Structure formats: structure tokens, C-alpha cells
């Protein structure tokens, strides 16, 4: 008896429970390229008109999808870079430097990470308004990066903790400054953590919805999530085919990134978080 036949009942249960999800994904793909066929489960003929948003504005009031995609990309990339850079330095400090209040700082990180963002939204709104950053990409980049930082710092601290002290001692004995030791000896050891953090915070930025919705509602700063929201909300008769096609377009980068960087992402959930 091989392993597959022994666990067949488990496989069956998992299949039953995953089926709704799987069916949803399948229809997401099918409906985006098929005509509507009211009253039937089976799709109509092949129809690419749902993807028309790629080459024309779907209506006069909306920005082009490419502007929105560009916004989303800038938003996600900048946030990811900021989070990764700051976490790389802050995590090192927390892991290695004997600074006052370090345990409280660590405790604070965990609390901040668990803190529900949405409760801060009014305060953040007022602050952004005050700073003149309301309804700007820069404003939501700041906010998103700040909210992602506790997670990033914590993860990076975990990675730094696994780097042996002796490597740093050896570096110092070899005549390198602390900064040089960090840059050329320690940082290469935590590369997997940096890669994973970069990808994760990019994906998190890519899928962010609430912050742009509340803090950057104008059409010039629209990102894909708020664009989709507007598409489904504004129309008197919702065009689900169009909505699904945009949804597909929105998720392609995520799927590609997951496929390309599976291994790096495993690091963060596997060995990296020994804090």
C-alpha cells in the first residue's frame, strides 16, 4: 500500500472543502474571457471585450488603467524599499546594540504589529491633511511604510539573531569598522530575509485598499484596488465581466511573483522568525 492510497480519505475531505475556492478561481478566469450566458452555469462564446480596459478608457471620467497600474507599482515598490531598508538597520540595532529600553521596544513592536490599523485612520487623516500630503501618493506611501515597519523590523531582528557573534568579532579583528562589518559581513548572511521582506511588503502594498481609499481618494492617485472598487460601485448596472477581467489583470503580478519567489518566501515563514 503506498502513501497515496492510505491518505485517500484525507485527500477527499480536502478536495471537498477546497472545491468552492477552486470553482471560484476557474470562473474568474473563464468569465473574464467569455460572453455572459444568463441563466446558465456554462459560459457563452469567447469574448475579449471585457479586456477592453487595456486599450481604451472604460468611460470618460476614469483615468487610464496604465496610469492606475503605474501608481500601484510606485506605491508598492517605494513602500517595499522603504520598509526593507529601515528594517535592515532597525533589526540590526535591536538584535545587536545594547541600547536603553530595548525590551520595551521589542514589546512595543509586537503590539504595533497586532494593532488594527483602521482605528488610526482618522488620526492619520488629520495628520496628512495638516502636512499637506492628503490625496497624494507620497502620503499613503509614508503611512503604509510606517504600518508595515513593525512586522519588517521584527522579522529582520529574527534573521540577525541567527548570525553568529563570532563573525562580527572576526570582522572587527580583521580591522573593519562596525559599519563595514555590518555591510560586508552581516548583511550578506541575512539576504534571504531581505529578499522575503521585500517581496512580502511589495505584495502587501500591491493589495492595499483601505489606505488609498480613505487617504488618497482623488482619481489621479487611484491604485488598482480603489479603481476596481470604483468600477463596481459607480455603474448603475454592474459589469461583472469587466470587473473580473480587471481582477485578473490585478492578480497576475501577484501570481507571477509567488511562482518566481516561492523559495524566498518560504524562508520567512520557515526558519527566519526565531525571535
Amino acid at each position: 500500500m503506498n502513501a497515496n492510497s492510505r491518505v485517500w480519505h484525507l485527500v477527499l475531505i480536502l478536495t471537498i472543502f477546497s472545491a468552492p475556492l477552486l470553482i471560484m478561481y476557474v470562473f474568474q478566469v473563464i468569465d473574464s474571457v467569455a460572453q455572459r450566458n444568463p441563466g446558465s452555469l456554462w459560459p457563452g462564446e469567447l469574448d475579449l471585450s471585457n479586456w477592453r480596459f487595456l486599450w481604451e478608457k472604460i468611460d470618460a471620467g476614469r483615468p487610464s488603467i496604465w496610469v492606475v497600474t503605474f501608481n500601484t507599482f510606485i506605491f508598492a515598490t517605494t513602500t517595499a524599499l522603504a520598509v526593507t531598508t529601515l528594517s535592515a538597520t532597525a533589526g540590526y540595532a535591536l538584535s545587536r546594540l545594547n541600547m536603553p529600553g530595548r525590551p520595551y521596544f521589542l514589546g512595543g513592536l509586537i503590539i504595533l504589529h497586532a494593532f488594527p490599523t483602521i482605528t488610526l485612520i482618522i488620526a492619520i487623516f488629520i495628520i496628512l491633511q495638516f502636512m499637506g500630503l492628503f490625496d497624494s501618493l507620497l502620503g499613503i506611501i509614508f503611512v503604509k511604510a510606517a504600518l508595515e515597519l513593525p512586522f519588517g523590523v521584527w522579522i529582520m531582528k529574527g534573521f540577525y539573531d541567527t548570525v553568529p557573534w563570532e563573525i562580527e568579532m572576526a570582522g572587527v579583528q580583521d580591522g573593519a569598522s562596525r559599519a563595514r562589518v555590518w555591510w560586508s559581513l552581516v548583511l550578506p548572511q541575512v539576504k534571504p530575509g531581505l529578499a522575503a521582506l521585500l517581496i512580502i511588503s511589495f505584495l502587501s502594498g500591491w493589495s492595499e485598499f483601505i489606505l488609498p481609499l480613505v487617504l488618497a481618494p482623488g482619481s489621479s492617485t487611484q491604485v488598482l484596488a480603489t479603481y476596481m472598487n470604483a468600477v463596481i460601485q459607480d455603474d448603475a448596472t454592474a459589469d461583472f465581466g469587466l470587473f473580473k477581467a480587471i481582477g485578473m489583470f490585478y492578480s497576475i503580478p501577484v501570481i507571477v511573483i509567488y511562482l518566481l519567489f516561492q523559495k524566498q518566501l518560504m524562508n520567512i515563514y520557515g526558519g527566519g522568525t526565531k525571535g
Partner: protein
Amino acid sequence: MELKLTEFTKRFGAVTVIEDMNLTVKSGEMIALLGPSGCGKSTTLFAICGIHKMSGGTLHFGERNVTSVPAQQRSVGVVFQNYALYPHMTVEQNIGFPLKVQKLPKSAIKSEVARLANLVQIGELLDRRPAQLSGGQQQRVALARAMIRKPDVLLLDEPLANLDAKLRLEMRSEIRRIQRETGITAILVTHDQVEAMSMCDRIALMKEGKIVQLDKPEQMYANPRSQFVAGFLGNPPISFLPASAGERLDLGASQTLARPSTLDAKGDIVIGIRPEHFGPQHGTGLEGEVIFVEPQGREELIDVRLDNGGAIRAILPSGEQLTVGQRVNWGVAIDRILAFSADGIRL
């Protein structure tokens, strides 16, 4: 280069680990800091290389006072217990890193690396990464990296602890050869008395933050200053027996030994007898029963329970055909007996 540590004190918070320690290592000498765990030998090492700040006292390399000089400018090479090689660099980059930090031209680095690799005999491994090396090879790389700056002092922190028994033997003589060839002043930190005795010119035996004896290995073995030193050196270890010194040494239960000619003391003392100084080759004198026989190939270790209750160990050539429970009456090399006062001071 001569290394001179004067009235060195190290405190961690309220705990004083080392107080007023003095140590001078002569130029080109290799000295061992030997002692049980927690005796402060690694603390001393870290103070010398500059990783720990000294709480008091001064440190000189030759004429230069380096007490408050940061580690980077001290010119000390360190070999760490786990070698601390940089995992993301090749062997060549590892060895060359100290020179790269000094911004030497590439060609100069390359030739220096080649010279060091030749010295430690790893010339063919330069393109490998540390993970692809055996323990002994990693050790050699660590040595080469520590030596490439031509440091004033070489510090070795338990360098053989992570090697298997055979490699340990090989690296023991290798490290000594390299130290001799380069004439570098070296300090070896170890808890293994065999390493200390076989590799070093002198041994500083430490206990609770103090050097209890600083001597040549043979001297320290033959002429220990205290019971602690006598017990720490020697493998198999020395046996201690309580005795009362009168006309003869009375061990109780009517077992007596002749007085060593050099002994003046009277009353209660402790005598130490090394295993090689007890056995049938020294005549008769102590009666007892064999309680344990441990064959070691060339030799056998024999534990004897004396009739007065004390235990004593002998080391004999194999082939004595002794069995557990057998009665023996063996002698002691009287003039090799080490006598100590009740509080452990050598008499």
C-alpha cells in the same frame, strides 16, 4: 612582540571576573591560558584582542600602550573556536578580507593570500566556500586569515575543541609549526591540559580569575605549587590521599610510607601520587584490592582500593593480567610524592 598585561581587572556590572592579573608573554613565545570553564581565560583573551574593554590595568604590545586602542587598530589575529569564517566568501576572499579592508591593491592581496595559503597548506582550496571544507581545513583558513595582517599577537580561542580526535592531534603540531615558522607571539586559550602541555612554551594555569601558576609544562607537572595545579595537570589524573606525617607517612589502617627526604612538615597533610609512581615496579608498601581495570591498548589503568579506604590509580604496561578483586601490594616512588597542606598549598 612582547605582550605585557599589568594589573588587569575586568568587571561585568557588579561582578569582578578578574582582578589585578599580571602576565608577560615574551616575543615569539607561545603561552597557554589553561583552566576550567568560567576561570576567566576567555575574558582575558577578549580583553587582549579589544572586544572587551578593560575595567582596570594596562596592556602593552612591545612599547606601545594599547589599553584604550580600539580592536581594529590593535594588530591582533584571532582564531575563534568555531573559526567564524565568512560563509558567503570563498577561501581566498576570507583570507584576503583583512587586506581588502586596508584597501591594498588586488595584486598585492593575491600574492599575500597565496603566501599564507602555502604556509597553512590549503593552496588548492582557494575557490571553495567554507561550507565545502572539513573542520581541519576551516581551521587552516581561519589561521591564515588571522595571520595575513602580520599581527603583533596571535590569539587562539579553543582552536581544537571542534575537531575530532585524529585531526586534533594533527592540528596541534600544525599550529605549533606555523607559530614557530613565523615566530609570532601567541596565546592559546584551552581547558585541555594535553593541548596546553604539548603546544606551548609556558602555561598560565588560571582559577577563579587568577593565575595560580605560570611555568614551563614539565615544571608545572613535576613541581605544582598547589593541590589544584597538581590535580589539573596529568592524564590520568593524580590521586590524593590524606596522611599524617610523623616518623613515617601514616595513611591509616596501619598503612605507612617512608617520608620523602625533602618533606619537613608534621601532622595532617595530603599526599598526591601520580599513576606512574605507583605500581609493582616500585616494590611494595601499599596493600589493597583492584576495583577497576581499564585497558587502553599500550597501557592499562588500574584503580586500587587501599585497605584504609583510600583510592589510588596506577598506570601499567599492558599484559599484567590483573582482574577485578585481586589483592595487590605495590610500592610508591617515595621521592616523587607531592605533599600538600590541608588547605592545598604545596609543602
